[in-house]
């Protein structure tokens, strides 16, 4: 008897097996459709936004000032304001976030205390953005006396994005094998020296990935900066890179999009679409860089 006939004799397809396999195919198809229903809108929406924005998009759009009550011209002051907010919040949040992650991953032992910190990080990530705005208004604008300013808005954004940095840095640190640390400690090296010379250099790309994610999150947020320092309009010289002081109010891209799409009547259709595409491309570009770094990191891992 050949092998084929043996197999044919062994596996006779019964009605039960057929039903089982049909269910399998149906389940797979349904789940695939559900996934596509979530993924396709992204592509369609981005495509549609770019299509609508095309007439207004140009390099000049980024570098020009808004004119005629924001109905014409470009987005330079808003773009610049977003850069200011993002850079300052990054400078404030990154060191604190990275050190908090170092504490959680390298120093703290499993106890009720680390459990509380863990819960606090989760809750901080879950606090609605508008509550962060209220906090920023109460703490930085009023209590600290910063007024509505770039600094107050950046501080609010920094607090809001802190959990992003903590979570991703912690993940990057814990990916460094414990044996690296043990080898180091056996040489009589102190804890901090181990972290500085071994753990951080080996996880730096992972840490940077998290930092980039924080930047992208900070660039897109609107609610927290609405009442803490960002205004509808502020006159700025064209091409002036140092237009805003720390205690000045500024414009921001996300807020600008909200304003021109809901508050200003008679804006030509392409302008808000172009602003949306500008904001979206900044955020998606940052995320793409972060994802690319993660993939590159995975391919060149040494351990």
């Amino acid at each position, binding site marked *: 008897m050949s092998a084929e006939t043996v197999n044919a004799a062994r596996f006779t397809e019964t009605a039960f097996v057929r039903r*089982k*396999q049909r269910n*399998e195919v*149906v*389940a797979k198809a349904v*789940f*695939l459709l*559900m*996934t596509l229903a*979530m*993924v396709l809108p*992204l592509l369609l*929406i981005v495509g549609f936004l770019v299509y*609508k924005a095309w007439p207004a998009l140009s390099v000049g759009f980024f570098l020009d000032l808004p004119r005629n009550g924001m109905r014409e011209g470009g987005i330079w002051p808003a773009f610049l304001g977003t850069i200011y907010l993002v850079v300052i919040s990054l400078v404030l949040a990154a*060191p*604190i*976030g990275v*050190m*908090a992650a*170092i*504490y*959680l991953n390298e*120093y703290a032992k499993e106890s009720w205390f680390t459990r*509380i*910190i863990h819960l*606090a990080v989760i*809750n*901080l990530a*879950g*606090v*609605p*953005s*508008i*509550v*962060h705005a*209220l906090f920023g*208004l*109460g*703490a930085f604008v*009023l209590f600290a006396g910063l007024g509505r300013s770039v600094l107050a808005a950046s501080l609010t954004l920094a*607090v809001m994005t*802190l959990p992003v940095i*903590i979570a991703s840095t912690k993940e990057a640190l814990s990916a460094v094998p414990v044996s690296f640390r043990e080898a180091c400690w056996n040489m009589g090296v102190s*804890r901090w020296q181990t972290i500085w010379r071994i753990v951080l250099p080996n996880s730096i790309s992972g840490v940077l990935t998290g930092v980039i994610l924080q930047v992208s999150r900070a660039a*897109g*947020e*609107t*609610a927290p900066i*609405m*009442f803490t320092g960002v205004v509808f309009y502020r006159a700025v010289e064209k091409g002036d890179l140092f237009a805003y002081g720390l205690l000045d109010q500024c414009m921001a891209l*996300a*807020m600008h*999009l*909200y304003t021109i*799409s*809901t508050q200003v009547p008679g804006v030509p259709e392409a302008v808000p679409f172009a602003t949306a595409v500008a904001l*979206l491309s900044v*955020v*998606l570009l940052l*995320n793409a860089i972060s994802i690319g770094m993660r993939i590159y990191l995975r391919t060149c891992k040494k351990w």
Partner: protein
Amino acid sequence: MWLTMPLLHRPKWKVVGEGLVEWLIRICGVSAVIFVFAIFFFVFWEAKGILFGEDRLDLWKFLTSEEWYPASESNPRYGASALIAGTASVTVLSMLIAVPFGLGAALFISEFCGPRLKEVLKITIELLAAIPSVVWGFIGITIMNQLVMRIFGAPIGLTVLNGAIILALMSVPIIVSIGEDALKAVPDSYREAAIGLGVTRWQMLYRVLLPAAKNGLLAAVLLGVGRAIGETMAVLMCTGHAVNNPFNTTFPFLHPLDSVRTLPATIAAELGETAQGSQHYQVLFVIGLLLFTITFVVNMTADLVVKGIKGK
């Protein structure tokens, strides 16, 4: 022995510096706890006048009355129940869409697709999560507005349904990524045992994986709910901004084509117009406190549910 002595003695400033750095790290380590308390404290501080002061807010009326007339000169009334109903309606409807689709996508990504497709889908979902909420709001008032008007024949497209679809698209990435983590946490030996018995993937899924991962999946849903309740800009822009209770007692119990206003949207829309320290201003901080409490409870519950599996 004496040859190694110079190495044993590090310069004094290095030892002291290291101690300082370690202290700094400890302080930063508790920063998250400090900030959570600070958020509660400062929001509470701005709201305390109306909670405990002379003419304090009647909390029962605040939670049950539908009369939200904060700007009335003669008789301002602060009844938030229509706003709470607005928040609830948008959240419930968006979860009705997002939970099946999100969990379905998580199951597909985790169990049914090959490694290459999995990578592509995960990256796409990640990008979906990255779209800022104000851009979602913009999509709501332009694209979704037109779609709702055309497909459902509504006179105005800025409705509960519009907000719910946008919110569903926003909270799906969270549900997918946390749900996928929960499925990944089920040991492979479970899968191997099931496959070894000759079951199909679908049978394995609903007999083995779903019971094993149910806590993690529940946590994924809860985190999605938390996100939906607190979402501000997108909902502010695309639910029509009318104080209105969309629920009623007859079937289908919810008018998806009504315009509503939610709690976070109310704060975002009205805070800019109130005088600092006024009654209206303080009431908005009370709403903030309410939101903080709701999301706090939801997040804590989600975490306890996850810990439930790990504790076993």
